[in-house]
Every structure is written in C-alpha cells, then in structure tokens.
C-alpha cells in the first residue's frame, strides 16, 4: 500500500509571533520550526501501519521553500521512506491543496493522511479540498483509523459525541490524537534519513484568488477578576458593563 502524509512546517508552540513589512508578512526571525503537531500524529499512524503491513511505503509531502527541508528530514528519520517538497511558499489552503492533489494523482496513493489543521493559520480545510479535487472521501478529525483490506474503520469527533464510520480506500483523513502516539526519531533513523530520497518539484500554477492584506496580533489577555461564587449579581454586572459581552 502507498500512503502519503502531508506535513506542515510551523512555528514551535512556544514561539513569540511577530510581523514584518508593515504587518504584511510573518517574521520568522528567531523562530523554531517543527512538524505540525497534528501532522505528527498522522505520520505516526502511517508508520504504525507500515510496520504492521508488509509492502507499505510512506511518502511525506511538504509544500514549502528550501528552509523546510530539516523538518522533512525529521519525518524521514521518524520512518517515512521518501519525500517530496513542492518548492513554493504555502500561501493559502486552496493553493496548498491544489499542489497536494497534483502530487497525489501522480503518485496513486491509497491513503492520504494529514493533520486536522496546521497550527500556524489553522484553516483546517486542506483535507476536504484535496478530497474534492481528487473526487474521493475526506474525513476529519479522525481519532482512530483501523484498516482491513480495502476499507477503513474510523472514529471521528463530532459536536457532543463520536461518530464511527467505514470508508473504502482511497480517502483523505485529517488526523488528531489519539490516533497514534507521536514518534521521536531515534539515532539510527536520523542516520538513515541522510540517504533517503527527497525529491523537489516545482509547483503547478494556481489562481487561488486569496491575497493577504495585513496581520494583527490579538489583544493581550487581561487580568483575571475573582468573584465569589454566590455573587451572581456582580458577575452579570461585570459581563454587561466591563466585558460588554451581554
């Protein structure tokens, strides 16, 4: 079986976020980049499937510029067999999904896994756009994925509960914990990642119709006010007059 895992290259969760060029660009100075935490789960599940299903290969794909290669090497160190980097700035979801769909078509993958969302822009729609573009099902957020033959049993989180589904291959899944425990590369994996193939391809041109105007940071969190549990009046007063949410 051929599995494609799409990974994002995103700022570490503890990074301080700044913008440059008049607040029109994200400023990566001093920022540590990591594999998107949700993508990490997708990758971990793919590697588990590879380990338990002989003949499975895992390809990782990233849409990004050359600086994402250490992140891709990490995915190879974790156990993917080879990698594709689509040489482009991942500007928006439609653009990224178009590149993924293009590569997925060419590679003939039976399973396309990715995180439920990236943790930089958090749009959470790439999996469904890829599914639409390929004309195959897409499911998210997938918390459990068991394969048997040509079908997969999935568990998905929905408002107020869980949904259990059966999907036939091929399909796209946006993954989240506890689909698998995320993996730490070992030293042998890091060594062998040196020589695994990493193919760089040029992007297909896409007219996505999305342009970024300006970035803004959210207002810093205010301090917490404690109100005694029986003072409902005061709570309502503050919500109305201070927080202005009622």
């Amino acid at each position: 079986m051929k599995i494609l895992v799409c990974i994002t290259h995103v700022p570490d969760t503890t990074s301080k976020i700044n913008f440059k060029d008049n607040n029109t660009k994200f400023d990566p100075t001093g920022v540590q980049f990591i594999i998107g935490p949700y993508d990490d789960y997708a990758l971990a599940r793919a590697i588990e499937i590879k380990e338990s299903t002989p003949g499975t290969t895992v390809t990782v794909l990233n849409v990004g510029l050359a600086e994402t290669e250490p992140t891709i090497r990490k995915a190879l160190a974790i156990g993917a067999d080879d990698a594709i980097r689509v040489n482009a700035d991942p500007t928006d979801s439609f653009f990224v999904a178009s590149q993924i769909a293009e590569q997925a078509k060419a590679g003939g993958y039976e399973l396309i896994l990715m995180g439920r969302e990236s943790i930089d822009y958090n749009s959470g729609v790439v999996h469904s756009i890829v599914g639409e573009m390929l004309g195959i099902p897409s499911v998210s957020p997938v918390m459990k994925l068991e394969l048997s033959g040509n079908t997969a049993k999935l568990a998905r989180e929905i408002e107020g509960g869980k949904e259990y589904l059966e999907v036939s291959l091929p399909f796209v899944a946006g993954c989240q914990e506890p689909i698998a425990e995320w993996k730490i590369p070992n030293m042998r994996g890091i060594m062998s990642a040196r020589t695994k193939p990493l193919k760089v391809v040029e992007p297909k041109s896409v007219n996505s119709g999305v342009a970024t105007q300006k970035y803004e940071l959210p207002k810093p969190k205010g301090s917490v006010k404690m109100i005694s549990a029986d003072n409902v009046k005061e709570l309502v007063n503050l919500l109305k007059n201070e927080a202005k949410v009622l």
Partner: protein
Amino acid sequence: MPNHNGSAETVKKSMKQDRFEHPDFYAIDDLLTEEHKLIRSSIRDFVKREISPNIEDWAQRAHFPFEIVKKFGDIGAFGPTIPTEYGGGGLDYISYGLIMQEIERGDSGMRSTASVQGSLVMYPIYKFGSEEQRKKYLPKLASGEWLGCFGLTEPDHGSNPGGMVTNFKDMGDHYLLNGAKMWISNSPKAQVAVVWAKHEQGRIHGLIVERGMAGFSTPETHGKWSLRASTTGELVFDNVKVPKENLLPGKNGLGAPLMCLDSARYGIAWGAIGAAMDCYDSARRYAMERIQFDKPIGSFQLVQKKLAEMLTEITKAQLVNWRLGVLMNEGKGTTQQISMAKRNSVQVALEIAREARQIHGGMGITGEYPIMRHMMNLESVVTYEGTHDIHLLILGNHITGIPAFI
C-alpha cells in the same frame, strides 16, 4: 493569526511540566548541523517523555528504572560513535556530546547509565576486542538487551588504579580471576562486566566477565545521597573461571582503561553542562515568577548577578565543549584537553546548582524543582572519572612535565 498554541500544547501533554529550553547566548547553534540539532531535539523529547515525569520519584526512592535500558537502546543512546555494523550510531563526537548533555539535563544518574554502557563497555570491546567479541556483545549492548558495567576502581585503589590487586592466573584452558571492584555503576543489573585485572607478570588486561559465571557476584551499594536513580555496586570474583576468549586482545597496560575514561570524560564534559543548563533554566523562570517585596525576585541586582554569572559560565563551557568535539572528530583531542573540559564543566555545574538553589529559596530544597537532585548528583560526577584534583595533576604534569601524583 488565530492562536491555538494552547491546544497544541495540551496535545503533547507529557511535556507540559518540563519546559526546558537551552541557553545559546553565543549562537553556538550556528556551529551545529541540522542533523546535530535534530539529534538534540530528539533526545530532549525522549528525556521529557521518559525521564522528566518520573525522575524525581525514582531518585527519592533510590530506584533504578531497569526498563530505561531498553528505551535507551531504542532511541540510540548507547555507543553513538560506534559504527552501525555493530549496532552503534555511527555518529560524530558533537552528536555524542549533545546526547550526553540532554540526558544529563534530565539526570546525571541516567547519563551515567548511558555513558558507562557506551564509553566504558562498548568502547573497549570495539577498540580492544576481537571480531568475535565485537559481534557477540556490541549489538546486544547497543540495543539495550544487555546492560554492561566497567570495573576498574577497587576498595583500596581509586585515584591510583595502577595499584590494583584484582588478578588472574593462566590455568591452561581458562583464566582464574580473583579480587573485588567497588563503586561500579550498573553492576547489580549488569549482564556483562569489562574488568581490569593484573596477570601473573603484573600487566593490566581487560576481561569480559558474564553474569552466571561461578564465583562472580555483584552486591549492591546502598545509602547513596547521589545518583540515586543509578544503581551502583561491587564486583566480587571468587575463583571465577573466565574462558580465554574473553580476554580483550587489542591492548593491555593501564593505558587501555584510561583510553576508555577519556571517552567517558568527554561525555561528562557535555553532560555536566546539561545539568547546569537545567538549573539555570529553572532559576531564570523562578526568578521571573517569584514575587517578593512586590517585585519579581529577578528584578533585584543580587539575583541578576547570579543569573548573569551562570549564563557566562555556561557559555564558556559550551564553547570549550564544542571546540573539544571538533578536535575529537579530527582525532586530535588529547587526554589533557579532556581533563580540562571535564573538570571545568563539573565545577561550573556544581557552582550553578548551588546558586540556583539559593534563587529557589526554600522551594529549592524540595523535589518540586530539579536543583537539589542535580546538586547531589554532581557530587559523584566531580569524583568519578578522575577526581577534581586528579585532573589538576594531569594538567600540572602536562604544563611542567613533572608528575605530582606521588
């Protein structure tokens, strides 16, 4: 930009408590390759997942978590510089240093387990062993299937190992080993011991002794206030018949075990700075969070002085370690250079641990923070692998050409 950092953080729950970040004041990371950084972050993640959540409990109970041996094997912490064909990592000395730094950042006892296995057991078998010995022992030691120990120190011969009395006699078809070793890390749980003993002519040789050989026992040493999560014991040899093929053929004389110590001491130079970084990181956070006289204690000059001195010493030691790693990679690192780095790192770490403990006030003496554990651990690290003063004598001998050991 929506800020979902919180959600990603709760995703990786096991890392929530341990927020360690290493200081890099002189941008030493620029001197590392992407692969070095991946090695470091992987071992750091491993420590945060496998060691940090449990180490306080293990240390308080003086419990050696034997299951960590297999986990160290899986992650590749044993014998990083040993070639891959024998199960090692095939990595360079900077990688080895970073691995030791990250593990000791978690705990010196855990680092001891790993450096004994890699530098003091696998290294001599690789360097001085026959091809059969390498094939038989190295893969099992690398994977963590077997734990090993290194027996040099004796009850009456610590700083002066050349005076050892443990000895073996050639009995024709085997050797007969007698004597005792003391203060041996890993010994109570070890399957394999690399033992240094004198033959009839007084020359020191290395022998591989295996658990189960008649007359060989490994009583545990109890009551340590230091390296409590590492197990320490004796090696007792009462007419142990050792097969002749268990003698390390490649090198003999005191130089052989001293070469092993060079490799381990190099790892300690990096490791101790890992412990220092953990103390500094914790002190820095605490200084910003703890309010006294209506201000964070980090706003007082005396606290700032402590933090500034800590960062200075860590930075100097980082540079020494990095340069030494490059020399080791080029095959040019000397015993004396390693002595200087080992001694300096441990001293710096001990001083930082003491200052960090003060910054933590009363909290600093509890297991809520790692400081007191590091501080007690480092009291062993400053003594083993050549005491603080013995390294001065090694350097003094190098400077003057006059040995002052006796």
